[in-house]
């Protein structure tokens, strides 16, 4: 069953040199209990996509298109309506647990304030729920933790608390924006495990945003790769990662240090990701693509559907080889 259905989402931001589209014509769906991963280089619009679902776009930012969440159309929502949904049905956690918790409020306040607001529960009930949540995210000694301030916890613990906070009102959708980027590798694994368990135990839908393909590989069911605000490829995670069809996806995978290339050299995608407001025309990737042809420079890239579950946006489609054939 589809929980979230995004169609032709465009996010326009105000920049120093006028308005610019940070997200362009994005469409995707999430089923209940499914984990969707969104990957892409810095500035590709991952965060803006998430924020438009939350109604938290930056100052002077605007979303257009359609975001259908659980039967409600979020584009054009009033701030008041967003506040009803936010925290209750859709929750979000942010990249840096060091800064995303309020330094001056106790964990109890931060865990229960929205619970009490949305669910109108008593202080005692909220507290009980908070203890339960802390237990769920494996914070040792929840009683003491409630009275503590964020500064008394390490980064990994804080991210767990942030997750507990997000889960307080039993949301249907959780958006995790780079949830492990700021954490150490040995700690990152714990958070990934936690998210995985939650999805299983709570039938939660999750959007995980990161540029770390390894993390997505571990966690997600489906994957969407973005470049310059637009989708370039999407499909089931295992298929996208093992048999990428878009040259950009291929480039990302090749650039990983543990890929099978030889010697000390890493393989880089030539050039740099474009800046907002200076996206190239046509297929935005054509400036860096070794397969680019003339027709890539204008018009929109072809949408290629593969097996009904995958699609790429590429006019050239250079890796269109039968499944199983090793390149």
């Amino acid at each position, binding site marked *: 069953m589809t929980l979230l259905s995004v169609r032709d989402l465009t996010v326009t931001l105000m920049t120093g040199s006028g308005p610019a589209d940070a997200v362009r014509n994005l469409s995707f769906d999430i089923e209940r209990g499914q984990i969707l991963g969104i990957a892409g280089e*810095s500035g590709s619009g991952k965060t803006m996509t998430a924020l438009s679902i939350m109604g938290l776009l930056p100052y002077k930012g605007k979303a257009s298109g359609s975001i259908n969440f659980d039967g409600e159309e979020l584009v054009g929502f009033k701030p008041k309506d967003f506040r009803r949904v936010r925290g209750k049905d859709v929750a979000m956690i942010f990249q840096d647990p060091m800064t995303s918790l309020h330094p001056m409020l106790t964990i109890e306040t931060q865990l229960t304030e929205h619970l009490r607001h949305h669910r109108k529960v008593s202080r005692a009930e909220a507290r009980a729920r908070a203890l339960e949540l802390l237990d769920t995210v494996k914070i040792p000694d929840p009683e003491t933790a409630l009275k503590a301030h964020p500064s008394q916890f*390490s980064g990994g613990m804080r991210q767990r608390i942030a997750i507990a906070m997000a889960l307080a009102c039993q949301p249907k959708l959780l958006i995790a924006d780079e949830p492990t980027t700021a954490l150490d590798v040995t700690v*990152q694994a714990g958070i*990934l495990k936690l998210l995985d368990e939650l999805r299983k135990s709570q039938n939660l839908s999750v959007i995980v945003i990161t540029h770390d393909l390894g993390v997505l590989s571990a966690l997600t069911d489906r994957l969407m790769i973005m470049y310059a605000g637009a989708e370039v490829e999407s499909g089931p995670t295992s298929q996208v990662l093992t048999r990428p069809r878009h040259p950009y996806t291929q480039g990302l995978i090749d650039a990983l240090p543990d890929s099978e290339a030889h010697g000390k050299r890493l393989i880089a*995608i030539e050039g740099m990701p474009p800046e907002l407001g200076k996206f190239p025309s046509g297929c935005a990737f054509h400036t860096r693509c070794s397969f680019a042809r003339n027709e890539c420079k204008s018009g929109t890239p072809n949408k290629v559907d593969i097996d009904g579950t995958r699609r790429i946006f590429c006019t050239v489609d250079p890796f269109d080889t039968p499944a199983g054939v090793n390149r």
Partner: protein
Amino acid sequence: MKPIVEVKNLSVEYTRGDQKVRAVAGVDLEVSAGEILGLVGESGCGKSTLGKAIVGILQGAEGEVNFDGQQVSKIGRGQRDAHYRNLQMIFQDPYGSLNPRRKIGDQIADGPRISGVSKADALEKAESLLERVGLPRNAVERYPHQFSGGQRQRIAIARALAISPKVIIADEPISALDTSSQAAVANLLVNLVEEFQMGLIFISHDLSIVRRISDRVAVMYLGKIVETGKTEEIWNSPAHPYTKALMSAITHADGKAFIPLDLPGDVPNPAYPPSGCRFHPRCPLAQAECGSSEPVHVSLSDGRKVSCILQQAGSAPKALTF
């Protein structure tokens, strides 16, 4: 080959309030010309502190650092001795490592100018170095804000190269960069080491990159080096549980939905290091005596050095399974 940088039993302390924090606690390390040494460890384990102490930005509390036969001392207010200018450092933050108000060219020319090269020659050198690191010659006239993070990092490298250093300490030079720039900067460093036969200490928290580019690896945990050795050997058979844990925690983009191993807890605060083996509270293989006695740093048969009671001096590394 004789090492060009030798670190012997180095300790570095910070003072926080009236408390001493030993961020680096008795480290031995060496690098030879033309060699890349990867230094890995999680955040807060003292990598940057060690790097800074090696070049002389920080004063060691104990032990010493020898560079090219002479002991390195802390940089003072005056000009740094010409000998030690051959020991350079590159920093993590590409935004903080260049002066936003000065032209690129002037900044690169600084080193040669201080060494007595004429302004014109220094600028000429700056231009050719920019070209060498893959930037246009006319970049000399521009200011840092006109460049991306990756480009700035290359400029910072060019600045260090301008005085032809013998050793470079690169402190997480690519962590702040985008995937594509990461590869470019890493490749540049590798090329330069080969071309100029410099020694490079490459500090990183990312074992997979270190594995790719370095000849040898030193693994650091809470102020101590727990294991050093040839990259491939360590990669194939980690002798220290922490090394193993680091490796197991690496995610792989293979689409196999494999959630890596997690260790309990975080890297502890170096102000209150655990007793005995500093890793024992998080170690899946910890034994009773790990909490009380500090393991000795032993050499294994393949030349590796490791601090773990599971390993015996002189013998082959024992395989670890969690």
